């Protein structure tokens, strides 16, 4: 803050010989108190939102963990944030200003404006103080140069504040740079003109408020363009938030009019150029044509001179009451024309995704907009959103891939995901394994037929590799340079780097630091790192139990050791993995080789956390893949079977919290897992069905 004042004074001092000090100096130079006041007003309303979201990838709805920011806007615990933060949320946990973490749910979301509403589960909140509720300010009053504060949780840190000024009240993404910012098929820039500012924001700030010095929300931070941030104006955000809270959606009209800014050289002085009229639309039915200039819409004079005027025009059309009869006045060939049409409901660009594991795909219904964009006569069919690389649909010949539309399965017409779900269920009744079904699908304008083997592929036993002997030791190549440095110039061999404790090599007397010169009478040539593998390959050609002589160099003396080859530790043990779908982790046996390398005593009863599921309870509690699990709720996890039993017991008891005792490196720690046994999260997402 001091540095800021200093530089401002210098700037002003430099300006003194050339200009007088501006009269608005008191506003241009906010003092610390103003910032403090704004921060105090707003700070306790800030939340960090941790989200477990699902996105279609490789034919599945895969979980991802994300974080963003939000602000509490009501005493009921409603929080405003971005759709791209919480709109796909399956589990949401909000971290309050005092550090308390509170379970939350997605209430509703609007991809077109990238606004979502989340609600705290106040029954689970421990702090009984009333919530601090943020107020909205008027974004229309903002001017370039106004001081603003960006508040939120960049990089998922706790609540933070940065300061800047409003740089641009009409920020838009230029079309020549690739155009719109899209969310689930919606062009956010078609209705939002961002507030550009230079308060530093970073990934994680999304959804957090842009705040004026009165401590009011004047924007919801959404995008970053280098060092410039873009916030959704509060005028839009507040309106959308109200609708989402009240009705769970934003009701919008569809006219089919695609307006654009007036071209410079067509001599048009006012109005909106109709760039296009979409097929099957109310405007088309009324006779509106591309090239018309719309001058009045529902009694309101309209004008789009530059691109920055377009979002407001689009919002005007979208906010028309659904089913309203609208009169428009257009200029065509120099004459005024009045046309009348009735608006229709717009709906979303993209329907919700549904996973079909039996097919290896994620699909969604066709919305009106999606159908029109694909020039389809109706919304019948199911759009394939994602396919697995190696799945039933991609194994079919021809394959069904992303963008295809399934229209019939086993002779049954498919109108939407509900139909697909039903026919899948019917076809697989009483079937174990897979069943081939005839599928009719559209790929662009082509209608194709294929056979897809749907169902659950029976897991076949894996093919095992043969168990092979090993040296029970690890080696390093003795390069010529290393040999010379060790005073062994001209010698060829391999350096022993590790002797497995308790195994034949140790029992035979092999030691770390020995140089292996001959193996079963053959000289060891091992000058490059890859030569070490050749030694292991050579050993594997023997039989387990064979005695072979080793000639070694130790302390200047050549010794012969007889080694009985035993099974190679790297392939000898079954890991016995157990995947737990409740706690979202896989445990497996801690193999002897792992114990040797990680210096875990042979008598320490433990298992390994082989992997954790992204966004699962284990990950949220801070457990990581590779951790050594020592105990669950105080009971030692001696083996995978014990771990499995304890996890199942906890799940059956719906334990409020389960404490894992783990080891990571030389450190041990406790991780408290608090599963949510209800199905509360994700309430805002609709079930599969036709929109």
């Amino acid at each position: 803050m001091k540095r800021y004042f200093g530089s401002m004074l210098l700037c002003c001092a430099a300006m003194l010989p050339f200009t007088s000090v501006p009269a608005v100096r008191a506003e241009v130079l906010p003092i610390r108190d103003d910032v403090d006041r704004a921060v105090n007003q707003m700070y306790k309303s800030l939340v960090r939102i941790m989200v477990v979201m699902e996105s279609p990838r490789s034919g599945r709805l895969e979980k991802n963990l994300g974080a963003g920011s939000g602000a509490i806007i009501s005493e009921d615990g409603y929080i405003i944030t971005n759709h791209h933060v919480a709109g796909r949320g399956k589990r949401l946990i909000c971290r309050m200003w005092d550090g308390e973490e509170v379970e939350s749910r997605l209430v509703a979301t609007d991809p077109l404006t990238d606004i979502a509403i989340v609600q705290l589960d106040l029954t689970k909140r421990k702090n009984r103080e009333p919530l601090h509720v943020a107020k909205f300010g008027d974004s229309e009053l903002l001017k370039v140069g106004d001081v603003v504060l960006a508040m939120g949780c960049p990089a998922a840190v706790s609540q933070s504040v940065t300061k800047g000024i409003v740089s641009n009240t009409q920020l838009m993404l230029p079309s020549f740079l690739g155009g719109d910012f899209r969310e689930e098929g919606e062009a956010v820039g078609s209705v939002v003109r961002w507030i550009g500012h230079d308060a530093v924001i970073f990934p994680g700030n999304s959804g957090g408020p842009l705040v004026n010095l009165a401590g009011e929300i004047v924007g919801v931070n959404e995008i970053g363009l280098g060092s410039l941030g873009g916030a959704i104006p509060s005028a839009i955000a507040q309106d959308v938030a109200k609708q989402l809270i009240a009705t769970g959606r934003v009701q919008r009209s569809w006219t089919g009019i695609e307006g654009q800014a007036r071209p410079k050289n067509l001599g048009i002085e006012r109005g909106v150029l109709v760039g296009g009229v979409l097929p099957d639309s109310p405007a088309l039915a009324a006779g509106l044509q591309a090239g018309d200039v719309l001058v009045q819409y529902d009694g309101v004079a309209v004008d789009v001179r530059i691109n920055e005027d377009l979002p407001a025009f689009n919002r005007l059309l979208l906010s028309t009451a659904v089913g309203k009869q609208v009169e428009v006045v257009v200029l065509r060939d120099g004459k005024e024309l009045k046309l009348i049409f009735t608006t229709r409901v717009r709906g979303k660009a993209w329907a919700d995704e549904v996973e079909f594991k039996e097919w290896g795909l994620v699909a969604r219904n066709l919305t009106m907009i999606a159908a029109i964009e694909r020039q389809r006569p109706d919304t019948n069919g199911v759009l394939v959103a994602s396919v697995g690389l190696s799945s039933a649909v991609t194994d079919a010949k021809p394959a069904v891939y992303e963008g295809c539309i399934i229209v019939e399965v086993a002779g049954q017409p498919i109108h939407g995901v509900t139909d697909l779900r039903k026919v899948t269920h019917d076809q697989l009744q009483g079937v174990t394994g897979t069943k081939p079904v005839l599928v009719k699908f559209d790929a662009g304008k082509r209608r194709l037929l294929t056979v897809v083997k749907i169902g659950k592929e029976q897991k076949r036993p894996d093919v095992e590799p043969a168990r092979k002997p090993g040296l029970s030791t690890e080696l390093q190549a003795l390069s010529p340079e290393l040999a010379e440095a060790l005073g062994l110039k001209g010698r060829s061999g391999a350096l022993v780097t590790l002797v497995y404790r308790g195994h034949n090599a140790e029992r035979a007397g092999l030691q770390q630091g020995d140089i292996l010169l001959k193996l079963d009478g053959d000289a060891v040539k091992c000058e490059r790192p890859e030569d070490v593998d050749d030694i292991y390959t050579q050993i594997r050609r023997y039989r387990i139990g064979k005695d072979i002589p080793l000639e070694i160099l130790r302390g200047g003396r050549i010794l012969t050791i007889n080694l009985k080859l035993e099974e190679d530790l790297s392939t000898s043990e079954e890991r016995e993995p157990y995947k737990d779908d409740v706690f979202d982790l896989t445990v497996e046996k801690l193999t002897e080789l792992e114990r040797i390398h990680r210096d875990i005593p042979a008598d320490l009863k433990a298992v390994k956390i082989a992997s954790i599921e992204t966004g699962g309870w284990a990950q949220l509690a801070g457990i990581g893949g590779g951790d050594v699990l020592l105990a669950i709720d105080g009971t030692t996890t001696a083996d995978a079977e014990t771990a499995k039993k304890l996890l199942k017991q906890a799940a059956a008891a719906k334990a409020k919290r389960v404490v894992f005792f783990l080891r990571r490196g030389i450190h041990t720690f406790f991780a408290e897992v608090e599963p949510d046994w209800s199905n509360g999260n994700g309430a805002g997402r609709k079930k599969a069905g036709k929109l």
Partner: protein
Amino acid sequence: MKLKLIVCGLLCAAGVVRAELPPETVRAIHEAHKDSVLMLSGTLKFQTQKLHEIEVSGPATVVDTNGLLITAVSTVRLPMSARKTEIRESTLKVKLPSGAELPVRVVLTDADLGAVLLAPENPAAVPAGAFQPVDWATAAQAQRLDPVVIVGRTEKAYGGLPDSAPGKINAVDRKPRLLYICALLASGDGEAAFDRAGRLLGIGLGAQTIVAAEELQDVIDQARRAAARNATQKPAADKE
């Protein structure tokens, strides 16, 4: 006369050490063992980084009466690695001497020997007496230049018929394992090699190499255990 007798004796002696076997010997060995080498066919889909599909066609030698089979990696081209291989789909079958076909699955691979071992998918469905194994108990060893008879099958294009080919051991490698190199061995992969007395010498496992019978006991035992392990497992959780 004496000189003639001596010359004749020398000529006869020379004939005794010649490597070529008379046709009737080869035929007898063929007849005795032709049903111990059967024809494998089908397709296999396995998963590594991506899904692979391979076609299988070639001979496999019967190891035991339960239908354990051994063949070469050139016939079943699975990745030879130290990790388990996930099989997604299999239509592998073996054609029995009766003409019937029995589904089989791969149970074990040995990257160093180049061996692939298979077992019936459903052991309970194996008809009694369906499999005639080679006789491991009387397996013998050979020396350089000893004659050898390879009993096998013709290529698929020729119907996979039983066939036999005489050959000769050109070299013997004893370290680290006992291997016979048979330079003129045109195929021999997955096929059984016998000495002049019809005793098993080993199995052809690629690169004109016959791996001695005694060297295969270890991997055969492992394959039996692997087959038994998977046969007694409860149906695994369905793949999703």
